[in-house]
Structures are given as C-alpha cells and as structure tokens.
C-alpha cells in the first residue's frame, strides 16, 4: 500500500539534496523515477511539502529527502489529508 501511495506522490516530488529554500530550476519535471521505501517523515507545509524515505536497495541503506510543490498547489491538484 505504501508503495502505491508513494508512486503517486513521487510524481509531484523532486529529490532534495540541499535545504528546501530554492527555485524549481534544478528539477527535471519531464523525468520520473520510482523509488520504494518506508516513509520516515511527511509534512504538508509551504513553500514545499517534504518527504523523507528510508530506502534499502543495491546501493545500501539510507534516507532520501524529497520535496514537492506547496501544500496549496497540491491541494488544488487533488491532494487531501485523510
């Protein structure tokens, strides 16, 4: 179930390696990637929603931080907290 949820969420998120205070220029919105992991942290805030995923794969075990659009943009795109 978590994997299904993440697949839909990741389409609206980008991988963030630095702090969250930046423009969207560094993201390639035409490219998508599926990553499976356990949600460690998820907060719906502005200016960017944030997600931390604990991933175990061939590269090892690590946390990957993602961030998305603002909560407001996600809300208008259909996102709802349940």
């Amino acid at each position, binding site marked *: 179930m978590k994997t299904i949820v993440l697949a839909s969420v990741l389409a609206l998120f980008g991988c963030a390696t*630095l*702090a*969250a*205070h*930046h*423009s969207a*220029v*560094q993201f390639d919105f035409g490219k998508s990637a599926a990553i499976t992991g356990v949600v460690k942290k998820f*907060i719906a*805030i*502005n*200016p*960017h929603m*944030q997600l931390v995923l604990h991933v175990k794969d061939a590269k090892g075990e690590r946390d990957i931080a993602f961030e998305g659009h*603002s909560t*407001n943009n996600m*809300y*208008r795109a259909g996102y709802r907290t349940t």
Partner: protein
Amino acid sequence: MQLRPRAASCSQVATSLLACLLLTATEAAAQQPDLTGVWTTYNEPGQAPGGGRGGGPPLPLTDVAKRKIATYRALVEPTGDTPGGFCLGTGMPGSMLGSGGYPMEIHQRPEQIMIVYEAHNEVRRVYLGNRIVPDADRLPGRNGHSSGRWEGNTLVVETTHLVEQVDQRYAHSDKARIVERYHLEKGLKGESVLVAEMTMTDPVFYTAPVTAVKKWAQVPNGHLLPYECAEEGWIKRLEELEKKAAGAAPSTRP
C-alpha cells in the same frame, strides 16, 4: 411680489443642480466595475498554463542595474535560493503580475481596495480619494504604497515608495514608479477577465519604461487557501529544542 417667484425659482434651480450632482455621482459610481472576488491566472486560448509568465524581450536595464542583478544572481544561483523559499512575498510588480501563479482576492470599497495574493499572504492596500496617505507618512516596502483613481471604467493605481529589489523578474530601485491600469473584458466563454496593464519607470534601473500585461480570470464563488509558510523553520526549531532537551535530560542508566 415679484421677488418671491424669483427666490422660488433659484431654490428650484439649486435643488435641481444638487439632484443632478447626486445623480452624476451615483451614475459615476455605478459605472465603476466591481472587481471584488477571487481571480486566477487567465490563459489565452491555446496558451500554455501559467499565463505567459517569464520570457519576453530583454529589459532596458542601465549598467548600474545590470551590475547589481549580476552580483545577486552569482550569489544565489549555485543554490537556487529565492525570496519565496524564505517565505518572503514577491513584491511589486511581481505580485500584480502573477504572484507565483497563485490566485488573488480583491475587496473593493469606494475609498479602499484590498488585494490579497494567496502566496505568502501578500496584501496591497490601494487608497482612493480622501484615504490617500500623504507622502510624508508612507513607509517604503516591497509592495510600495499604492493610491488609486477611476478613469471611467478603468482603475488606475500608482505605486511608489518601493525598496530596491533585484530578486524578481522586474528588478527595480527605490526610485521606481509603477502605474497599473485595470479594466474588465469578457473571455471567449463569457467569463470576466481582469486585464492588468503595468508600466514601470525607474531612472536608476531602466533606460525606458517597462511594460507588461497580466490577465486574471474570475473564479465564481472562489476562495483563497491559507498560506502559512514559516512552519518549516518553526518545526526545525522545535526539533532542535527537543534534541537539546533530550541531551540535557538526566541519564536513567544505573
């Protein structure tokens, strides 16, 4: 005896004039369109979403402006830092030209028009008539100070008392003066479209006036969403305090 009819006549004339003046004022007020409501970016038919943000011809920047902008960009481009990322509003004219693609809400009264941009809850107050604030009492800011007047069906807003901003598409100095002209049109589907024409003059940053147009589509019964933006900093601060408290807690180990 002859004076009475004359006096009565003058009184009647005065009453008629007053009635005419009142009627004229009422008609003038009735002519002014009501811009109250929620508005979102209007996309022309065939236009990509975003309302044509960005792009356009090169701006007629002075050498002073070019240097300042280059210095700023060299500073932030390695990290992509933006004012919005730090919960700072766009400021004029970025706010009136789209405010990051978020909607805006207008509340219109005869003496004051409030414009609330959803992004960062930016607020502009446009004062009209006797509410216009004297120059000496205006506090400069990123959205400056705005006063308005009606020219027929067109709302004309003049904004001055801006602070220098190199962190937006239409950078400007604190000497910038922005004139907005708002009027209503009908879109192809019959919807109300608010056309905002902007002209900015700034002798320090530009060699010629800069113009831009933004179109807004009315959102019937629309609502703005709340836009709290400083939560991230607060959450991080709480996490720091929690770590500090955990570190300071007496050990429970024997």
